[in-house]
């Protein structure tokens, strides 16, 4: 269970999140929708501990642990995975090396045994096949020269291999054509399970046709201003965010 | 026949440098040569306070002990400092001058140069046209400053520095030499000893100067050095845009121009300083032309202060010039946008120094050099980051374009980072004018010279855009004129 309570986050001196409260029970998929500038990406960064996103007030608990006390790698070891809106290019580090380093670092942090090289290769081959990814691509430096769709698939592949328990998808549909979107959504849906929580951050309703949420929240001006079932997303799609803007201002 | 050819060449030459005329203005000179008495003579002519004379004499003493710098990538015949006039002024009546009292011959000079000195003429222009206040410096003295009263209403002081020394001695004394100390370099020391005029600008706190300020420098007299001194103080939260233009007659001799410009920007102040330098570059054989040895420096001592240098350097036989920013204030910012065009036998060694002392200070350098003929152009720049200056950012882009086989183009940047949080980026390219592009433009009907002008204007566009509108148009034409005869 993810429990965010009265979260205030500032970037530099500027307050972005202003008292955000949200619970995501285990096994549920929640969508956070909102207009540009509402603080959607900030929420993802704050949960994952990006430097410069300072929580000034409030708390974030994940399965009983206080996330705000932990550094980003420790949060990752607790199962927090942020799928980046714009995955970072890392020249010189082959994707395979990167994923294996990450997987073993997480395992060490949890007191588990590291994965051997052959075992790891087997896992990667299976996962990349499921995502229809060319295995040779994984020998290239991470995300360098990848298309938008390839980068997103790379995120989903890491998700599948790292097996996180809290998934935060930040605008995962941006830059994807319909086929790529379907593949990515299938990858995410395959990870749905009673132990996993998912937070899907998106501006458009489109992604939610493929990843069906249990609950939908509207984020405007740094706070959750409305919550409802999946029908709320359709309503937002039809009516836009206008009616939430004055209320939030 | 030979004589006819000669005449045609001479006319063609005149066409190219259209500011090359001399004017028959009655002038008075100080005796030739430099010694302590000449320094005293200049100071007395200006009716300066005693401390100013002492300041000059101290500078003169320092200068005598210094050696002329040789590190720049320029070669020139040595200057005989004893064979120059250090003071030349149009003869005029004493006392406060209005435009009506200015020698009509002088007004004609400026009219010919296209510099508006009559306020009513400027006002009579197109509705909404930008107005520019002008300080016109003719050889050693300022002949007229326009719009003084209107500027005074806004609290802006804009006057010849010689006048400011009499009217605002405390203000001048506080800042003069505080950015470029007298002993800074050989030419700055010389200037400090013998400068005769230049502009003084003070913008009070919170004031946005209501119009562009401009100084127009003209060297007219033969065998005369011009040593002007400009001091601009932008008080807290103020803004000013300042333009500088310069021309000189065509003469076979080399003339020395050793100016000093000091800018002080206090908290939140912004100064934009633009130069179109079109001193006489010498003739096609490299005879004559101005030695342009200039020290320009801005002290961004205030937090969030900003100084932007933009220069279009097309003239002078030899240029030695590095408009710089000392970024002392936190989050202060310095910019340098430069176009240096050399043709014929011109030599230019120019660039900037961005000295980052303040936290989160930023700088940006865009330098475009175009070399043609037998000319030589060097970009020389320094970006340095002090150990205590965290969060510094710099971006530098230097592009050089070569036209012809006999020119040279050099890029010599110095990058010194002494703080782990600095992010410095430098890019430079050197290429020739593309044959494909030239052909393409010609195929569509442009003459070769039009095509060159078009392509070069494209090459320098990023910098032209930084100029105030009315200057940009002039500069664009200048680019084309400077490169005439460079292809073929």
């Amino acid at each position, binding site marked *: 269970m993810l429990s965010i309570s009265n979260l205030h986050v500032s970037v530099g001196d500027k307050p972005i999140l202003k008292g955000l409260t949200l619970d995501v029970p285990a096994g549920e998929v929640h969508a956070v929708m909102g207009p540009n500038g509402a603080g959607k990406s900030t929420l993802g960064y704050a949960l*994952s*501990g*990006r*430097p410069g996103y300072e929580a000034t007030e409030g708390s974030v608990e994940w399965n009983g642990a206080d996330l705000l006390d932990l*550094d*980003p*790698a420790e*949060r*990752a*070891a607790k199962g*927090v*995975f942020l799928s980046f809106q714009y995955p*970072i*290019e*890392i*020249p*010189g*580090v082959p994707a395979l*090396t*990167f994923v294996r*380093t*990450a*997987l073993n*670092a*997480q395992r060490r*942090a949890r007191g588990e045994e590291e994965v051997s090289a052959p075992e790891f290769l087997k896992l990667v081959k299976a996962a990349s096949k499921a995502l229809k990814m060319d295995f040779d691509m994984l020998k290239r*430096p991470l995300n360098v020269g990848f298309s938008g769709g390839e980068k997103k698939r790379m995120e989903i592949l*890491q998700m599948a291999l*790292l097996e996180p328990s809290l998934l935060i998808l930040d605008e995962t549909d941006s830059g994807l054509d319909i086929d790529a979107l379907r593949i990515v959504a299938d990858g995410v849906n395959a990870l749905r399970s009673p132990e996993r929580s998912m937070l899907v951050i998106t501006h458009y309703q489109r992604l939610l046709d493929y990843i069906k949420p249990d609950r939908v929240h509207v984020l405007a001006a740094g706070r959750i201003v409305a919550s409802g079932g999946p029908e709320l997303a359709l309503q937002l799609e039809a009516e836009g965010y206008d009616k939430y803007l004055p209320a939030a201002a | 026949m030979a004589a006819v050819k000669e005449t045609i060449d001479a006319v063609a030459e005149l066409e190219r440098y259209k500011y090359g005329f001399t004017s028959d203005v009655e002038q008075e000179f100080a005796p030739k040569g430099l010694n302590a008495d000449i320094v005293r003579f200049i100071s007395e002519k200006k009716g300066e306070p005693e401390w100013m004379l002492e300041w000059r004499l101290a500078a003169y003493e320092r200068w005598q002990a210094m050696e002329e710098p040789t*590190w720049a990538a320029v070669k020139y015949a040595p200057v005989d400092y004893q064979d120059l006039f250090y003071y030349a002024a149009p003869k005029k009546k004493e006392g406060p001058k209005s435009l009506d009292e200015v020698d009509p011959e002088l007004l004609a000079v400026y009219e010919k140069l296209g510099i508006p000195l009559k306020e009513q003429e400027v006002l009579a222009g197109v509705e909404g046209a930008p107005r520019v206040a002008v300080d016109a410096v003719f050889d050693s003295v300022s002949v007229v400053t326009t719009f003084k009263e209107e500027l005074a209403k806004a609290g802006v002081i804009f006057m010849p520095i010689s006048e400011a020394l009499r009217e605002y001695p405390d203000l001048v004394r506080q800042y003069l030499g505080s950015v470029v100390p007298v002993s800074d370099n050989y030419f700055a020391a010389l200037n400090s000893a013998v400068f005769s005029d230049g502009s003084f600008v003070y913008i009070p706190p919170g004031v946005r100067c209501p119009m562009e300020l401009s100084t127009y420098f003209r060297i007219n007299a033969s065998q005369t050095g011009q040593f002007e001194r400009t001091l601009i103080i932008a008080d807290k939260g103020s803004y000013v845009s300042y333009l500088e233009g310069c021309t000189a007659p065509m003469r076979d001799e080399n003339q020395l121009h050793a100016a000093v410009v000091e800018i002080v920007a206090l908290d939140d102040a912004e100064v934009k300083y633009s130069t179109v330098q079109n001193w006489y570059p010498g003739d096609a054989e490299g005879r004559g032309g101005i030695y342009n040895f200039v020290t320009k420096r801005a002290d961004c001592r205030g937090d969030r202060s900003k100084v932007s240098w933009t220069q279009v350097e097309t003239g002078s036989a030899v240029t030695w010039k590095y408009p710089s920013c000392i970024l002392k204030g936190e989050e202060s910012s310095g910019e340098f946008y430069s176009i240096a065009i050399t043709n014929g036998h011109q030599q230019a060694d120019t660039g900037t120094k961005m000295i980052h002392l303040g936290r989160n200070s930023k700088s940006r350098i865009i330098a475009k050099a175009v070399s043609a003929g037998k000319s030589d152009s060097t970009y020389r720049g320094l970006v340095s980051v002090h*150990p205590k200056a965290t969060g510094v950012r710099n971006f530098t882009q230097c592009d*050089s374009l*070569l036209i*012809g*086989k006999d020119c*040279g*183009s*050099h*890029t*010599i*940047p*110095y*990058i*010194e*980072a*002494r*703080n*782990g*949080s*600095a*992010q*410095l*980026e*430098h*890019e*430079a*390219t*050197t*290429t*020739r004018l593309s044959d494909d592009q030239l052909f393409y433009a010609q195929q569509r009907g442009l003459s070769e010279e039009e095509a060159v002008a078009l392509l070069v204007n494209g090459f320098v566009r990023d910098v032209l855009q930084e100029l105030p509108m009315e200057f940009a148009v002039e500069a664009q034409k200048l680019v084309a004129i400077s490169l005439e005869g460079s292809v073929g």
Partner: protein
Amino acid sequence: MSALFDIDLADASTFPSRRTEAWKYSDLKRYLREAPQPSPTAAIGAPGPFYDLGGEAIVFANGRAVGVTDFIASGDQTLRLRYISDAVGTGHSAGARVAARAGARLLLLETHEGAGSAYVAHNTLELDVAAGAEVTRIVLVEEPEDALSIAQAQVKVEAGGVFRQTVIATGARLQRVETRVDHHARGAHVQADGLYLLNGARQADLTSVVRHLDRDGTTSQLIKGVARDAARGVFQGKIVVERGADGTDARMGHHALIASERAEIDAKPELIIYADDVQCAHGNTVGALDESALFYMQQRGVPADEARALLTQAFLIEVVDRIEHEGAREVVREWLTARL
């Protein structure tokens, strides 16, 4: 002492100071005011990092030649050039001359192996690459932190010749690896790469001057460096295109990471161009590790220190990846990885 090199350890008046423009950032005079006492003989211990790659060897121990000092390569050959120092507080010089005959392929594996302390070493190399010959020079420099070391090479490349170089420096009190390469005839290709990895208060200075004297030459240079702690990295790269050297294509890049508040990087990448039919470019960046990449790695569970080490390695390894000879490349990769 060859006239090509202007420093003579026996004559203190030849020691450059920062007043000399080319030594602006490496003030030898500051550290060395007088000529050092000559070093005694040295014993040769370990076989050197490139031993397994075989080939011939030129060995200097504290400046004294153990065998020949000259070598002429023909056909396909490997030469290990070892400058070994184990002196304490004394100085020594050594000079080698190597040539590759027309059409030869030479792998030149140069090592500066320092033990002892506070010595002064001045090692020089004259290298001629004949028409159509191909020389790959790998230089590994590892010396005590209080040593003063100057390595100077003068390389001449004839028509169609290929000269590739990769310098790996770890710094000393003052360590300068200077290479002067002339495109002496048309159509030569030069690659002048290098990297420095500096800890403590070490300094390394990679200086190069590549002159294009004839047409259609290409030069490619990639230098990367990391300065940690209070270390200081210096890069001075000069590309000169002389009049008539048309068709030149020259690219230079220097990229440095400052990995500590107290570290320092000084760079002077110069282009001096006297010909118009050229394509020349240089790029220079100085900065810290990419914060967003660091966060991304941490987000995936890699601890900060490990992420930093991995990113640093990835940053530097690009230079190693450009070494074409596989055997040499793998030795260098291991050598470097061990020092990260």
